[in-house]
């Protein structure tokens, strides 16, 4: 048997082991494949980080191109290991603070363009020519505005436009989620078909 055929057998056994969860919940077969998956993912992550991050940064950038500034980043990252040193845990907070600050800054820098694009994309003509398109645009406009009303947390919405608007927004959200549920479930079914193809076509050769 070829290596490829062995790989299909291994994939099939792994798929069946994972699906055994559906029949018997947590069981030794599922636990074995779960640990194999977590272990192999961790091993892959370590090798990937060494090959694609640590070695290129040290060999190519620091030694090769003389980018010695990278050492500061490395030191900052390594400070996180102080969380294991009793009495010196506070040093690890420097790295944590940097990560949290970086995340906040990155989000702030890139979010406004996305929001504004969403706003300008909502500028639509309610008299679009034919009835169906106009109706669609009016519905779109109402859903956008009412959903915004739903997500206003500190406005009083016990009566009037805000009451009915936010209720309509909530129903509109549920309709949208129902529609998304259907389409994503179909996508998941295609994934299952892919797994069945591995079992019945590639491994057992029962279908062509």
């Amino acid at each position: 048997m070829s290596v490829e055929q062995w790989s299909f057998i291994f994939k099939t056994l792994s798929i069946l082991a994972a699906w055994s969860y559906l029949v018997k919940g947590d069981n030794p077969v599922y636990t074995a494949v779960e640990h194999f998956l977590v272990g192999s993912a961790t091993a892959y992550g370590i090798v990937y980080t060494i090959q694609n991050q640590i070695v290129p940064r040290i060999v190519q950038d620091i030694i090769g191109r003389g980018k010695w500034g990278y050492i500061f980043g490395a030191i900052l990252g390594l400070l996180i290991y102080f969380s294991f040193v009793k009495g010196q845990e506070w040093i690890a907070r420097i790295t944590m603070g940097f990560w949290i600050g970086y995340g906040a800054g990155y989000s702030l820098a890139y979010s406004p363009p996305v929001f504004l694009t969403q706003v300008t994309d909502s500028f639509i003509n309610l008299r679009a020519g034919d009835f169906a398109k106009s109706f669609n645009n009016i519905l779109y406009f109402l859903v956008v505005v009412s959903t915004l009303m739903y997500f206003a947390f500190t406005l009083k919405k016990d009566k009037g436009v805000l009451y009915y608007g936010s209720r309509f927004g909530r129903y509109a959200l549920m309709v949208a989620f129902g529609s998304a549920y259907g389409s994503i479930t179909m996508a998941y079914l295609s994934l299952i078909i892919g797994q069945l193809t591995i079992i019945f076509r590639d491994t057992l050769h029962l279908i062509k």
Partner: protein
Amino acid sequence: MNMAQALVAQTTGIFAPEMTVDFIFVVILFATVFVVLQRARAGLSIPPIRKIPGLEAIDEAIGRSTEMGKPVHYSPGMSSFGPELYAGLATLSYVAKIAAQYDTKLIVTVRRPQVHPVAAEIVKQAYLEAGRPDAYNPDDIRYVSDWQFSYTAAVLGIIQREKPAANLMIGYWMAEALVLAEAGSEAGCIQIGANTNVFQIHFFIVACDYTLIGEELFAASAYLSKDPMLTGTVVAQDIMKILFGILIIIGTVWATIAGNADALIELLSR
């Protein structure tokens, strides 16, 4: 301006003239937050946040775990450092404090290695604030795997083996949303899910007892703490939403009267 244009614009210098309008909106947001926070500091009234059932149910979920003598499972989601994770970690702090007060075991699973020390620090601090530093067990804060589906498989196993009575999934979730929510449901957990991913949130709606939809996640820390300062930031966000809502109405009326809103879009794209 779209993301690609913004990226190009950012390479042109410290101040990108192409992003002037975006900058103005950020300044308005900052100014609004500043003014509202000043009001909160001065003790002036701040409108309360409307009732969010999913957040009200957190105490109930932990209480149920305590009564049943079972642990609580918490995950701050799949994302790395960003808004959803911060919201998830803020809620984790509250959950850890309640769990410490009730003497209930709290299992936290994280996907990102860099999130693990932060989550551990938050839980440790919460136990300290609750006056139970001895009850903190670092082994209950678990980094599982950086790979999406190995994390999912491992959490599935943890839920089945340790049988938590409450499963709290507060953050950003992708294709694993349904798998984890279904596993929690199968194990008989009371489940609270929160997600900002519109392509996956419906799975939480069908499989969880309570779901925080989108932005409700970001109001969580203010809602739970009842801190006027944090509530002030939610008020500021609401003001921005009203501003954007008015802008959408103006743009739509403009497009309906003039046939299109290109002139306004051009103005906002500067």
